């Protein structure tokens, strides 16, 4: 079957098997390997991408189900060479070690800050509770997201731009 969708603002159209999962479509068909493929059971959250501005687990979504929709991956966070404040925050506050969970963490964080520009640490922990990090103990991830939130409050940026 043919699927057509916008991925990071670019229209893509490909012939796929209906059983192709969105994570494999993004990685193997489009070559966007920033989206990681982890537990394959919708637990770890490293495969999170946005479909129509909402984070979803792409290992549990068919590419066919995303046809006709707007998909955003971690590659779409940086715009014209400028990192998203969430990406900057992860650099500034050591929000990653091995980097495996990072794409999902950052996309979920971006969605949180778009809805709630001034989250508490508890709200951040709740928002990322569907993602697993085995390196950081989460503290630096929470700090990274707070860094991004603080930066955006000081210098409002257009959120959700892609």
């Amino acid at each position, binding site marked *: 079957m043919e699927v057509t969708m916008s991925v990071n603002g670019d229209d893509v159209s490909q012939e796929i098997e209906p059983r192709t999962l969105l994570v494999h479509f993004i990685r193997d068909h489009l070559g966007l390997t920033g989206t990681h493929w982890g537990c394959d059971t*919708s*637990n770890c959250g490293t495969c999170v991408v946005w479909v129509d501005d909402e984070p979803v687990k792409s290992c549990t979504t068919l590419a066919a*189900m995303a046809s006709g929709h707007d998909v955003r991956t971690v590659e779409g966070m940086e715009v014209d060479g400028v990192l998203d404040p969430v990406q900057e925050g992860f650099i500034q506050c050591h929000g990653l070690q091995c980097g495996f969970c990072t794409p999902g963490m950052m996309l*979920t964080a971006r969605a949180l800050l778009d809805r709630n520009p001034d989250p508490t640490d508890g709200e951040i922990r709740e928002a990322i509770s569907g993602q697993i990090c085995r390196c950081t103990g989460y503290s630096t991830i929470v700090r990274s997201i707070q860094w991004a939130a603080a930066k955006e409050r000081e210098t409002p940026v257009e959120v959700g731009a892609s």
Partner: protein
Amino acid sequence: MQVPAPFEYERATSVDHAIALMERLGDEARLVAGGHSLIPMMKLRLATPEYLIDINDLASELGYIRVEGDEVRIGAMTRHRELLESNDLAAVLPIFRDAEKVIADPVVRNRGTLGGSLCQADPSEDLSAVCDAIGASCVIRGRSGERVVSMHDFHRGPYETAVADGEMLTEVRVPIRPHSGSAYHKVERRAGDWAVASAGAAVTMDGDVIADGRVGLCAVGPNLTNIEPISAALSGQAPSEDLYATVGQIAADNATPSTDTRGTAAYKTHLAKELTIRSLRKAVARATGQE
């Protein structure tokens, strides 16, 4: 790599279209809503439908929470996140917010739906226990029209519901009664996990006594809808810790859990009792304006 077995994909644009597709494709077709139960089962090849009918385009037609008069009507495509965030729903049926806070995780809740959860009919699935406790009824639509069945009749057993081939669940209806309260308590090993055990309770007060009370249990037996001895024990009684303990014991006596990686049968039976007590206590507090 876990990948589903091959299937043909169709996308429905309306309820009528979905029903027509099911009729045309036959009993090897399955509906997929959020997909967070069915797709994992397909990846494990526990489910191998020949046709998958995507009903996500029905989110506008079947995604709603309407509090109207003495009834709440919730569309089957209403997603977990909407159930969690609806203040209108929390005001009349706080049990939904209690449960939704502990169903899966926020990202999964963006996709999973009320209808999908109920139709999956997993014995460890929270919303079946919720809908049982609050006396919900289910609207099932097929080619020949609509029928409305009670939650007790809807939930036939593990992974089995009253929805027949060519039919779909479209709406859940819940009566709103004055002086009522509801609550849900769950024990899970880690955030977002399935319940080790959970219990939901709903009560309606008549002055100082409980006119009507129900408890729904989850993860402690194959089919625990409509536990009549609990309702009988609550009816006409004044709320008290002794009453909650008695009812909790009935819940434990009706529980038939299995020992597995989430806990021993004895522990789950204990939880059935304790969570029933806690849910009843909170439901009564809410019904009597103490919370």
